[in-house]
């Protein structure tokens, strides 16, 4: 058997899963970011009744392992509404990333210097303008580096979706192993595909962190 040709073929087959892996990462990160905004706003409210549900949501969603969430949605809710693996994974990963990102956004909002809000208030800006024009843009800056490194964590978390049958990188690697491909090679190839995405992404997140540190350093 020609080992090189086999490895090349493995790369091709497993590579088809890369699209699904990236799709899951991008969709759940973006949808999670959108969902995270109201959660973070509620989480930073001064009213307990508004804050408590957001806190509970974040705690519960983050307290349950990703795999258990995916099993609950795919197999558990599957008995009520039948879902394909990919939509089930997208729902679960979006839910989880919204909770993690909401915590990042909350930290961003709370770490904007109190003097900024005071200066905005002293200028007679309305409460909404104080928040959206002064606090929020700076909160986004502060929340960006941890959110970029969360994107890396999310990318790796998407691997778990293979367990419920989403056809991502790992899924194809497993399939090739089941068809008799050498497991060591197959999973090295799978690992390489994750590295191709995760290493540049984590360098990018460090770069963002560095840039923002320069910009935000308070005088």
């Amino acid at each position, binding site marked *: 058997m020609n080992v090189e040709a086999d490895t090349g073929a493995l790369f091709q087959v497993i590579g088809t899963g890369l699209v699904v892996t990236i799709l899951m990462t991008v969709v759940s990160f973006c949808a999670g970011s959108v969902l995270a905004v109201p959660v973070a706003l509620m989480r930073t409210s001064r009213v307990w009744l508004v804050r408590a549900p957001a806190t509970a949501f974040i705690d519960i969603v983050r*307290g349950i*392992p990703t795999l*258990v969430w995916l*099993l609950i949605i795919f*197999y*558990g809710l599957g008995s009520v509404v039948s879902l394909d693996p990919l939509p089930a994974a997208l729902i679960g990963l979006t839910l989880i990333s919204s909770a993690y990102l909401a915590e990042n956004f909350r930290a961003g909002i709370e770490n904007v210097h109190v003097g900024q809000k005071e200066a905005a208030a002293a200028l007679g800006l309305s409460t909404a303008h104080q928040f959206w024009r002064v606090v929020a843009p700076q909160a986004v800056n502060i929340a960006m580096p941890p959110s970029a490194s969360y994107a890396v964590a999310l990318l790796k978390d*998407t691997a778990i979706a293979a367990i419920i049958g989403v056809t991502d990188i*790992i899924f194809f690697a497993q399939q090739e192993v089941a068809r008799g491909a050498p497991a*060591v090679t197959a*999973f090295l190839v799978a690992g390489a595909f994750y590295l191709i995405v995760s290493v540049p992404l984590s360098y990018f997140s460090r770069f963002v962190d560095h840039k923002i540190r320069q910009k935000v350093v308070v005088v």
Partner: protein
Amino acid sequence: MTFLADWAEWLPSLLQGLGTSLLLTLCVAGIGFPLGLGLALLSIAPARIVRILSIAFIEIFRGIPLLVVIFFAYFGFPDIELVISAFATIVVAHSLNLGAYSSEVFRAGILHVGPGQREAARSLGLTPWHAFSRVVLPQALRAVPGPLMSFLIMVFQSTSLAFAIGVGEMTSQAFSIGSMTFDYLSVLVLAGIIYAIICVVSARIVARFEAKMRT
């Protein structure tokens, strides 16, 4: 309220699974944290080649999903004539993962101790090793318990991945009950509640501990 009766019936096997989850967590921490400290030391070693290799190791394991490492070990080890139990496979794969992650915490702790400490120790005539092990390291380790406890919670959650290779921890137990009763939702929700309670309570304890350390 029939589900409560079900839950009461399932609880013993879930708790048995939970015991396995906790045992896995302990084994992984027992190997992974020392490995992390070792990797941290290697990553700031004087020899360039040692630094490069250890940092490459760390970056690779931080960049690959834990599940890939688990599958690699589970399906790959037999190919190279290395036969270990599924439990041991999880411990090995997970410890490598934890070692890579926690090395960053140890490294930051060591680098946080300023050069003045080492210089003061060296000026007392201590050997480089004594200066490091008796002066720098104790100070470095004082900063790490908080982050390491958070890692422990993450490790506990990730032990659920043992499900994928059939180690009978809590998620596997829940799933097999589900496959027998066809009531996946109820039993998985119960498992989720147990995970959430343990994680939320430990996270609160860690947060309180960290607040105490800061004062």
